[in-house]
């Protein structure tokens, strides 16, 4: 621990120290889980527009075949984890706190695991930056830390802002989770290789891999793997939650604060997860897309805690069955970590690209209890990594004034849950913030809808006016024609009459 780290540690004033529970799984190597009987692949496993299916129900697909293509700029493809038949494309329960169903592909594996022809690359370091980003996008890689932002889009950030440093987040500050730890220990070469490839794509000169001090084996392994590459350095991070949050990691490792509402790329830094780096290396070298991921199965209720490499689309129920089922009453199933992960309404949901863990928590672990009045101890303000005042924001939200909470910085809240964790009155602070962010988003949606409706109404009244005008014009034209015809007829009649008159004198003459 160097002098620089000492100073940086001294400056750290936020965060909490939840019980790690990492020893449950940290010494268990990542094992491959056999394929289940059914895979459910949601079309929206990433932030951005859901992918569009390119296969039809009943079609036979091969391992690595693209099943759905990205739509728009921020989106990601979905690939088949094995060969089999597409049974259905429809709405299935997805991991989401609402428990709602969303569009997904159902794949029934045929057990042959027949792959498509992959295009391996011997030396990906010779590829152009754009080509690296293109192949990462084609491989359907998203941020595996949980944010699921399409990795290729983040690799393109170097074009808009000069990026000097790529930070690799090996903090894994969420309790229970150890899959990143195991990945770093078991595949340190892949982590470093992927990091160097991403740095190449970004045009970044330096790579800093930050790993929390409670993972000494991972630090040693990655340091060894990075020893031949002077541009890659490994730094130990203090054990503290939420160290792995992007803005906090950037502030700690570079000393630069990311502006509120801004991207870290604006200060020349891009952050990726270590798991993403390992996948980028694999995708580029073998040409195989992202179809499997490592995750931690843990919690006191599970019979056999483990680190698994599972096919994306495997259901949580299958994973729990693979780990020997539960041995105690489960109070909560959580996907991801206990702090920021999502509460699962049931186990009939698939694992997606962003699932870093499946936790079966007993009631002692889940905690909870009813909230009491705020005693204004301000502990939440002390632990907030952004420096907000959660108790003040929650009071405003409760009084129905979300906009007043925005004035206090609600939009900068990263939802880490440190405030709710530390609250002695057990006030569900992060729930308040999720609720307020939801209402603000709903208000914004209704405002946008109002605007579009206004345009529609204006277009309609314009159309009606035009139609009326055209009708009037047509009527006028017809009338004019009729009158012209009448006039012509009258003239003709008059002419004839005149002729007759002329004729008459002639006759009379």
């Amino acid at each position, binding site marked *: 621990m160097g002098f620089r780290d000492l100073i940086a540690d001294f400056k750290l004033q936020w965060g909490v120290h939840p019980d790690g529970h990492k020893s449950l799984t940290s010494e268990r190597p990542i094992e491959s889980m056999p394929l289940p009987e059914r895979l459910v692949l949601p079309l*929206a496993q990433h932030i951005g527009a859901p992918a569009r299916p390119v296969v039809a129900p009943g079609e036979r697909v091969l391992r690595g075949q693209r099943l759905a293509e990205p739509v728009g700029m921020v989106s990601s493809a979905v690939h088949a984890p094995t060969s089999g038949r597409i049974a259905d494309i429809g709405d299935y329960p*997805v991991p*989401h*706190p*609402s428990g*709602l169903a*969303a569009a997904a592909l159902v794949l029934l594996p045929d057990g042959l695991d027949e792959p498509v022809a992959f295009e391996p690359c011997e030396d990906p370091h010779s590829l152009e930056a754009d080509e690296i980003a293109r192949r990462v996008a084609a491989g359907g890689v998203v941020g595996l830390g949980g944010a699921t932002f399409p990795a290729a889009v983040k690799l393109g950030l170097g074009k808009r802002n000069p990026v000097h440093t790529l930070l690799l987040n090996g903090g894994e500050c969420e309790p229970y989770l150890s899959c990143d730890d195991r990945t770093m220990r078991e595949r340190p070469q892949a982590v470093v290789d992927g990091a160097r490839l991403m740095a190449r794509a970004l045009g970044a000169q330096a790579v800093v891999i930050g790993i929390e001090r409670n993972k000494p084996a991972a630090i040693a392994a990655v340091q060894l793997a990075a020893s031949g590459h002077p541009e890659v350095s490994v730094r130990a991070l203090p054990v503290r939650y939420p160290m792995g949050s992007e803005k906090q990691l950037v502030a700690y490792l570079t000393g630069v604060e990311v502006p509120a509402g801004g991207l870290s790329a604006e200060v020349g830094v891009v952050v990726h997860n270590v798991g993403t780096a390992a996948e980028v290396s694999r995708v580029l070298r073998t040409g195989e897309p992202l179809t499997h991921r490592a995750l931690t199965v843990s919690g006191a209720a599970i019979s056999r805690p483990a680190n698994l490499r599972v096919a994306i689309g495997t259901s949580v129920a299958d994973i729990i069955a693979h780990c020997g089922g539960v041995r105690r009453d489960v109070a909560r199933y959580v996907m991801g970590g206990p702090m920021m992960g999502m509460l699962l309404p049931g186990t009939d949901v698939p694992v997606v690209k962003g699932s870093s863990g499946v936790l079966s928590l007993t009631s002692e672990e889940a905690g909870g209890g*009813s*909230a*009491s009045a705020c005693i204004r101890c301000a502990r939440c303000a002390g632990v907030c990594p952004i420096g907000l005042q959660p108790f003040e924001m929650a009071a405003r939200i*409760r009084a*129905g004034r979300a*906009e007043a909470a925005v004035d206090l910085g609600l939009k900068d809240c990263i939802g880490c849950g440190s405030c709710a964790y530390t609250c002695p009155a057990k*006030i*569900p602070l992060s*729930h*308040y913030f*999720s*609720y307020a962010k*939801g*209402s603000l*988003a*709903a*208000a*914004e*949606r*209704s*405002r946008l*809808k*109002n605007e*579009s*409706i*206004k345009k*529609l*109404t*204006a*277009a*309609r009244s314009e159309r009606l006016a035009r139609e009326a005008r055209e009708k009037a014009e047509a009527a006028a034209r017809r009338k004019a024609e009729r009158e012209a015809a009448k006039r012509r007829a009258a003239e003709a009649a008059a002419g004839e009459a005149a002729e007759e008159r002329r004729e008459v004198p002639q006759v009379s003459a």
Partner: protein
Amino acid sequence: MLIAVTSLTLIATCLGLILGIAARRFHVEPPELVSELEAMLPGSQCGQCGFPGCNGAAEALADGLAPVTLCPPGGPALALALADKLGVQVELGAMGEREPTIAAVREDICIGCTKCFKECPTDAIHGAMKQMHSVMKEACTGCGKCAEICPTEAVTLVPVAATLGNWRWREPAFA
């Protein structure tokens, strides 16, 4: 007595003069509140507020005869904007009670009479004579004019279905 009458008359006359001059000097055109309010309203003239169109609603708002929460298609966002404009307190609680709805065509009894889409203020219903009509969700305000005019009651208002796009956290219960 005379002094009292004359002095009071004098004071009142002077003050009246000053005020009269001030009223001339400091004259400002009253702001076109009604037209500003009307511009804020959706303008679909759907009549859900109970006033004759958005212009009538704007006049009622300006006169303080209607609450700012009067416009269901505008939702809470509009209510807040109106409250801000009029400088009044807003109670959104009443607003939330009304579940957002959307028109839906029952395909088995729609006879394709085209009455509904001629009535729709936002052109949200599409179809043709003797053809099935369908509703574009993005454009429908749930005003219900189509449901009123439909001869076979094939158009009904249904609650907007919850999707991942519009789902949001419920308010936490507090002890």
